[in-house]
């Protein structure tokens, strides 16, 4: 008989405590510094210029080949980033692209609300990715 009440004691104890849950989407939880959201492109915080040097390592390491990089010749006769496409429907959010980027031009942004009405909405271009990531700090240096 006592054992039935033992269980009730646990239930009653909970009754007076504050809730453990939050009212999403009105309230959003704080993400850890290393949180891996949508991979995005960073810009230099001082000049506002894109950091990418178009080396292509991110596209090489991507386990699902969801990154597509087009390189074009720059005005100085060097190479620069033409178009950069992320097919986020295939993205594993593993963070390897940001890890291997030698100039930390890719960041794992805090974007995680990514549902769309149509499939094309899952494909992000350079302009969109730059908008998500321009304010982001260096992801790899986060603690």
């Amino acid at each position, binding site marked *: 008989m006592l*054992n*039935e009440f*033992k*269980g009730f*004691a*646990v*239930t009653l104890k909970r009754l007076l405590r504050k809730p*453990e849950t939050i009212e999403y989407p009105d309230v959003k939880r704080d*993400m*850890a*510094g*290393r*949180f*891996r959201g949508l991979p995005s492109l960073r810009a230099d915080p001082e000049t506002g210029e894109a950091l990418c040097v178009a*080396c292509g*390592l991110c596209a*090489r*390491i991507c*386990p699902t080949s969801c990154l597509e990089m087009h390189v074009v010749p720059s005005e100085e006769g060097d190479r620069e980033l033409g178009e950069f496409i992320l097919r986020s429907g295939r993205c*594993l*959010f*593993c*963070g*390897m692209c940001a*890890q*291997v980027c*030698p*100039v930390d031009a890719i960041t*794992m942004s805090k974007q995680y609300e990514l549902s769309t009405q149509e499939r094309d909405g899952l494909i992000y271009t350079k302009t969109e990715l730059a908008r998500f990531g321009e304010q982001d700090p260096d992801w*790899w240096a986060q*603690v």
Partner: protein
Amino acid sequence: MTATDPGAPTSFGTFDVSDERQISERSREMVLNMGPQHPSTHGVMRVVLRLDGEQITHADPVIGYLHRGVEKIGETRRYSQFTPWTDRTDYVAAPQNNVGWILAVEKLCGIEAPERAQYWRVIMAELSRIASHLVWLGTHALDIGALSMSLYCFRERELILDIFEKFCGARLTTNMMEVGGFSRGIPPDLVGMIENFLHIFPSKQQEYSDLLTENPIWIARTRGIGVIEPEVALDYGLTGACLRGSGINYDVRKAQPYLVYDRLEFDVPLGTNGDVYDRYLVRMEEMRQALRIVRQCLDQMPTDGPLMLNDSNYAIPPHDTVMRTAEDMQRHFVWVIKGFSPPPGEVYVAIEHSKGELGHYVVSDGTPTPYRVRIRTPDFVNLQILPYMAQGALLADAVALIGTIDIVLGSVDR
């Protein structure tokens, strides 16, 4: 019979309505499909049940609904690229899958991570063991009717997932291990979070115990149900709590110690009756032992020292020197673009996963991609005991029997 008949035979589910046996003049066996969208099958699994009244005369699990060809994917990716895929086999215990895969690759390459990294791997694996057991406990109790248990268990699991998020940035599909150790430092307040968890969790676990261990309804639903005799458990090749619940002392961490488990003290809990209740007790005790292991790791671990192996062949160079030294930059580009090539050979590395023995068999032909990857998942093997346990059980106990094996369908199907 037409093709649209729900009882039509399929290539892997061999039951049709004509299989129903005549039991007496007025009654016959009933074939009932449980799943694939049944909430208590913990994923997409179908169990074809043959019923004589309320008694199960035969249960046949039909799997494959979540098959993604992970092993084949492993053969087309470079060694380091496959780690995120291992997260997705058993997705409730991703760090342990990472450990299994990374240890197999490291053995193939003949390298070993620095001591400090090994301790951190053990900590993450043991925390993930607790998280996995919490999911099991919550859903298993929910299946049997203790709804609030699932909420309590998921509450504490959050603390562990926050630790994972702090450590690597992801909560579920962690991809936190790397060949050679960890190339990223440990966040300064991570140890505090783990200490906090170690402080909070024992009292919470006592709550679960208060709710279930002596609860007469819980005992009535679990004791004497789904008994697996020790010799049957061995015959079926069970591992993990399903084997130890039957009283057989086999734990890979003790039998073939890996990482730093040989330096840690912990007990292997054993059951006596091999029923659902004993397996519950075994897993509860495993959570307590996991806490002990994490505690010892935090105490024994060297406070500083390298986390990543300095190895020019297999490990990724340090991130901050890539753009500073020419040698590291070259190594980095080669590592990313070409990958590394372990010497030709084959390895099998088993670890004690929260569900049993998780083995990775990898064959290298000396190229940057594996020739063959085979993952021996404990869930797939343990699931095969279901028909044996269900024979003669009541229909109401079917959910308890599925729950007690502790399967994750991503891991069964791969």
